[in-house]
């Protein structure tokens, strides 16, 4: 067990590990909670004590001035007092020995077994009955007390374990906590073996007991046969440690190995019961974690299933709608004459640019996910990027006043221009889609001096971002409004992906009564001044 030097200040306190044993977390009170030794005296010592007390009482009686009748009560007192300290057999022996001593040494004539009269027989008889009953009663009380103490130890041990487990979030943390608790409660070195990759058992990293070849075999045996093995059991009792299989619903989840201090020669059924309860708790913990991991896998599968379904639905819708337009417009174009032809050509152009955008977004998302986006930062001019994005959007911005707010001293910054152009295109397109026709857009840029970064922002005068979708705003295949039926829901996801790839970030704000604002940030490095030549 670790111990502390009281003179060492708290911050320097260290547990002093035994050689080869990792330091163990300090126990609450510095002593182990479970004492392996039985309380009370050993049987031989009880008899010695009985004899000692009787000798003293008899010697005192030899010289006492009281009548031998009265002195019988002193013997009775001595026997009843012995009841409090020794077991029921020593008490019985004390009763017999004191009766003989009383008759032989105290009742006159001394040094001879006096012939007892009726009165003496009555005293002796009462005396025996009282001694036996007192012995029984106190023995029963003591047994109850012993049981209670063990129950209490067990409850305390399990309480400590549960408390340690509830504080841990991952399986590793929980197992670590459980093993430290075992170390502490049982004063043992412990190990937890879990099924490893290669079909065998592998010790958990938090184990304080290192298993040698022999112990490993014993553990395998406990695992195979699903029963307690090793020391203190009939199965492989020569092993150094006790191996408890962790059973849940008939399945063995692992093996808990406890190497108790060498001096503990045997364990009582109650102690074994405590160990079993402890093992059951650990088994429960592992099962819970396995179930949690399984349910997480299930959730992931369900999520990826949802994504696939959405992807298929969306992609087929988004690709087929413009294709349908293209096809029917082209067919009509063959038949129509005059003014309708120009109209149909316009429809074809709109469908083509929509198709172009869908394909671009799908390609961008795929490039992001496959790690094919490798930004090539170069000096960028915010105005250039904004102009390129506006040019690229073309007719989509028709009828939208766009205000540009860029300070005259806006510096150049490092970014991948094509990626930034796509980011701005997507943000502008997003703003156009989710705000009323004709409402103004504001594109701004500037330097956030405090955080050494530059920003570009697209703000609109629309209804803002509904609280319900803020959580998954930048997730792929999430559209701003499910009822507004079109779009893949990739625009913002790509914005975020491209910004992260460049070491930047994107932040969405919804200003009440003013609309939504998306700001992208990039790290800002100053370039050397360019001379006026």
């Amino acid at each position: 067990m670790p111990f502390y030097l009281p003179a060492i200040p708290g911050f320097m306190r260290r547990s002093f590990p035994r050689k080869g044993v990792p330091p163990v977390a300090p126990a609450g009170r510095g002593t182990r909670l479970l004492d392996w030794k039985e309380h009370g005296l050993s049987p031989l010592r009880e008899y010695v004590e009985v004899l000692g007390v009787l000798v003293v009482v008899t010697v005192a009686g030899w010289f006492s001035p009281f009548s031998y009748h009265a002195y019988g009560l002193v013997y009775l007192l001595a026997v009843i007092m012995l009841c409090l300290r020794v077991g029921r057999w020593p008490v019985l022996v004390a009763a017999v020995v004191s009766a003989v001593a009383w008759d032989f040494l105290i009742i006159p004539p001394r040094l001879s077994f006096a012939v007892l009269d009726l009165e003496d027989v009555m005293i002796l008889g009462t005396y025996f009955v009282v001694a036996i009953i007192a012995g029984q009663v106190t023995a029963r009380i003591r047994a109850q007390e012993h049981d209670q103490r063990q129950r209490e130890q067990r409850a305390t041990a399990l309480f400590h374990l549960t408390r340690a487990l509830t504080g841990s979030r991952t399986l590793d943390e929980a197992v670590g906590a459980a093993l430290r608790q075992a170390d502490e409660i049982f004063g043992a070195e412990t190990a937890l073996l879990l099924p490893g990759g290669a079909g065998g058992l592998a010790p958990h990293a938090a184990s304080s007991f290192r298993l040698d070849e022999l112990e490993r075999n014993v553990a395998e045996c406990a695992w195979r046969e699903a029963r307690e093995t090793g020391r203190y059991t009939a199965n492989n009792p020569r092993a150094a440690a006790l191996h408890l299989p962790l059973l849940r619903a008939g399945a063995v989840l692992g093996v808990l190995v406890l190497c108790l201090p060498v001096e503990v020669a045997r364990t009582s059924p109650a102690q074994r019961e405590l160990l079993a309860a402890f093992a059951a708790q650990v088994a429960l913990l592992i099962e819970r974690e396995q179930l949690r991991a399984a349910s997480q896998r299930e959730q992931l599968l369900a999520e990826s299933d949802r994504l696939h379904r959405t992807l298929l639905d969306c992609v087929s819708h988004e690709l087929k709608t413009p294709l349908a337009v293209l096809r029917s417009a082209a067919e009509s174009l063959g038949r129509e004459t005059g003014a309708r032809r120009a109209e149909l050509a316009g429809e074809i152009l709109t469908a083509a640019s929509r198709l172009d955008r869908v394909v671009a977004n799908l390609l961008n998302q795929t490039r992001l996910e496959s790690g094919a986006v490798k930004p090539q930062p170069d000096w960028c001019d915010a105005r250039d990027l904004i102009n390129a994005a506006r040019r690229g959007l073309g007719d989509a911005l028709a009828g939208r006043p766009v205000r540009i707010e860029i300070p005259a001293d806006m510096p150049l910054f490092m970014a991948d221009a094509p990626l930034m152009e796509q980011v701005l295109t997507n943000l502008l397109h997003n703003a156009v889609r989710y705000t009323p026709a004709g409402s103004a857009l504001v594109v701004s840029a500037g330097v956030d001096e405090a955080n050494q970064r530059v920003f570009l922002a697209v703000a609109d005068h629309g209804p803002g971002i509904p609280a319900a979708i803020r959580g998954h705003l930048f997730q792929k295949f999430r559209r701003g409004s499910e009822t507004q039926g079109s779009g893949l829901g990739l625009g913002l996801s790509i914005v975020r992906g491209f910004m992260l790839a460049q070491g930047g970030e994107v932040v969405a704000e919804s200003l009440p009564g003013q609309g939504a604002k998306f700001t992208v940030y990039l790290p800002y490095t100053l370039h050397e001044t360019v001379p006026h030549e």
Partner: protein
Amino acid sequence: MNPDPAKPGVLVIDDESQIRRLLRFTLEDAGYTVREAETGHAGLVAAAHAPPDAVILDLGLPDLPGLEVLKRLREWSPLPVLILSVFGQEGSKVAALDAGADDYLTKPFGGAELLARLRALLRRVKPAEPAGAVRFGQVEVDLMHRRVTKDGQPVKLTVKEYALLRLLVAHRDKVLTHRQILNELWGQKMEGQTHYLRVFMMRLRRKLEDEPDAPKHFQTESGIGYRLVCDAS
């Protein structure tokens, strides 16, 4: 040789027959004669056999990478070459431009865009400007007298600003990569210093554009370079 010497000939090297057909419609309507080649090898043979006035080359050919076709062509011919590429190939576009391609178009593109590019490409091989003066918007650049005016008022440019303007004017309506401009103006040691370019471009825009924040003429091609747009159509 060209069947009709009055009509410029264009060789289209693309493996997609539909693209070839549509390019043919567009170009023939605009008064070009068109020849087609389906593969890079066939294209090189066709170009060697009867050099066209310009080549339209798809970067994604099945037999030879477009870049390779371009390099082999450049070994013996300064023919104007217009590159066709798809979205997301900025790197290969720049590589092709630096390897000697004259301009690029990203699929899908419009017919008007294609014809404007082609016009700019063919202008390069025409005889020098008659008056040595070039106009775009309200700006007139008199190359002979090194004079620049906007709305009739003289504009003062620094030496480097004028050099950049002259380079852009000489290649007007054509894209120039960062590397090409930096090489020309500052020499090879400055190739990576694109911030010089951005700053000078900003200064030129402030002096010559009506709305420097929304330039009509000095246009940026993201990730590639710059283009001086003079062609109003």
